[in-house]
């Protein structure tokens, strides 16, 4: 049955609006090389490559992994390309982990990326299909009505989203890789920023970034020999449901609740708020912090906003969320999920630098995508499961 697996290397590029100084191969290699250095291994020692990214139309290359496999040392090795919409970075991590857990490989290089500056994400996401009328302007247009639905049912104070944005933007200042760095960020600045998709304000949204994130995953025997602390994978989980059907709860989909329940069961966790030390949650629009705190069963239904408003999710709170600055600060779409997974690993390895949560032993990495319908998560720990 399942073998133990661990993250022994993490590599990231700096996330920026435009990485005009690199090709696509250059971008993914930058992250991969850093991950290999962290793992102290060579291209040659990698058994297989798993590549994830969001839709091919973002870069205008069909199955770009075919051209990037050898850029990642994948020549004459197995290579897989994962694509599960916005959750793809997370799913890529889950698939790569399963190659080790299934006893197939000893060392797997897992890379997720997006080079959004090659095109325009709003264009690629809003391509008007024949026979339909496009009314949804990009992801914000899709999610704003759901945020409104959440506010209605939870009675959350209107400024909850502002608080999340201020917190995540402050956290980003401690992360050298973060894209958006607003030095003088304040409540007023976010609250006064323009409404884009009411009720979502400009400073409550994620940027469009170029970037790549890479992990080296290894078997137990290799991880035990690693010089730096490995992040042991305690559990992974994925859940999906259809985009639209009669009676679908789009605000709090059953897929997220089922995903959370199954993940904690696998990890032997009874009380996630108490047992987890911190979490990296996929929050592309600020309101999704309270929403997914509930969706991950960390907060009670309709009460996620209380954790935010009480400061529980701040760096000095009892349950820090998005220490990296989150998707709100860096969003190379296809990589965004894997960055969550990578940050959770860095935290339990004690390698998160200025954004380190003291004594983090168990951390959650989370990603979602599509119309709040794809979820992929993992829990990593400083100790073996």
């Amino acid at each position, binding site marked *: 049955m399942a073998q133990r697996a661990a993250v022994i290397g993490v590599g990231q590029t700096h996330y920026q609006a435009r990485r005009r100084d690199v090709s696509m191969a250059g971008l993914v290699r930058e992250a991969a090389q850093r991950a290999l250095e962290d793992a102290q291994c060579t291209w040659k020692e990698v058994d297989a490559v798993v590549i994830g990214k969001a839709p091919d139309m973002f870069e205008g290359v069909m199955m770009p992994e075919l051209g990037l496999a050898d850029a990642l040392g994948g020549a004459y090795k197995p290579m897989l390309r994962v694509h599960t919409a916005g959750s793809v970075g997370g799913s890529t991590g889950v698939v790569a982990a399963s190659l080790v857990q299934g006893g197939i490989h000893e060392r797997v290089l897992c890379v997720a990326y997006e080079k959004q500056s090659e095109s325009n994400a709003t264009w690629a996401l809003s391509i008007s299909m024949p026979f*339909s009328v496009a*009314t*949804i302007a990009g992801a914000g247009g899709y999610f704003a*009505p759901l945020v*409104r639905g959440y506010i209605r*049912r939870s009675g959350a104070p209107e400024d909850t989203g502002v608080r999340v944005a201020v917190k995540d933007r402050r956290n980003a200042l401690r992360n050298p890789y973060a894209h958006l760095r607003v030095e003088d960020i304040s409540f007023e600045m976010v609250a006064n920023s323009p409404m884009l998709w009411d009720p979502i304000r400009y400073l409550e949204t994620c940027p469009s970034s170029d970037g790549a994130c890479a992990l080296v995953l290894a078997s137990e025997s290799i991880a035990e020999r690693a010089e730096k602390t490995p992040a042991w994978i305690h559990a992974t989980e994925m859940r999906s449901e259809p985009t*639209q*059907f*009669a009676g679908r709860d789009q605000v709090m989909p059953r897929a997220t609740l089922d995903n959370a329940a199954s993940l904690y069961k696998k990890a032997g966790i009874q009380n996630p708020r108490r047992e987890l030390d911190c979490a990296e949650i996929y929050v592309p629009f600020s309101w999704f912090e309270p929403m997914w705190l509930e969706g991950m069963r960390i907060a009670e239904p309709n009460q996620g906003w209380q954790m935010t408003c009480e400061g529980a999710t701040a760096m000095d709170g009892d349950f820090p969320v998005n220490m990296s600055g989150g998707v709100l600060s860096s969003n190379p779409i296809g990589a965004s999920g894997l960055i969550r997974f990578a940050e959770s690993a860095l935290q339990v390895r004690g390698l998160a630098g200025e954004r380190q949560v003291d004594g983090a032993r168990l951390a959650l990495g989370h990603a979602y995508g599509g119309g709040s319908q794809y979820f992929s998560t993992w829990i990593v720990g400083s100790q073996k499961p």
Partner: protein
Amino acid sequence: MSEDASEAVELLRIPVELDYTYSAGQSASRFLRAIAEGRLLGQRCPVDGKVYFPTRGSCPQHGVPTAGDPVELPDRGCIVTYSIVRVPSENIPLELPYIAVQVLLDGADTVLMHVLGESSLEDVHMGMRVQAVWRPRGEWTTSIGNILYFKPTGEPDAPYDSYREHI
């Protein structure tokens, strides 16, 4: 393309143009042909009887075709949720700001994404009763765009409990 021959070529502009032939599929075609006649046709899931509008030919919850007799729906309903959009998008020819709404037609069990007109940004709210405003009959095609927008009817709001499970 770099204009200055002394500068290095660092960026290429590569046009990609692909032509596609899309087919709407049997079920959506039936729905679109009805729209061309000004009729809104939903379809029932054979498992639980829920009415799908618009229809793509299947009940995604049960993975079965919604192949039975169509259900004719009125062009009225209520706003389930909405957003005021102030962000331009190349693919959307609407003037900013506009109100994007999810409309639950009376008798339907899924929502239609459309826009709200004849309403101020301040007035729009969840539960608001709305009615379709159609293009002139001579302009009707096989497109949901035959409905120009929805407008408020002035009827009392639909109670939250009547539509909450559609958000």
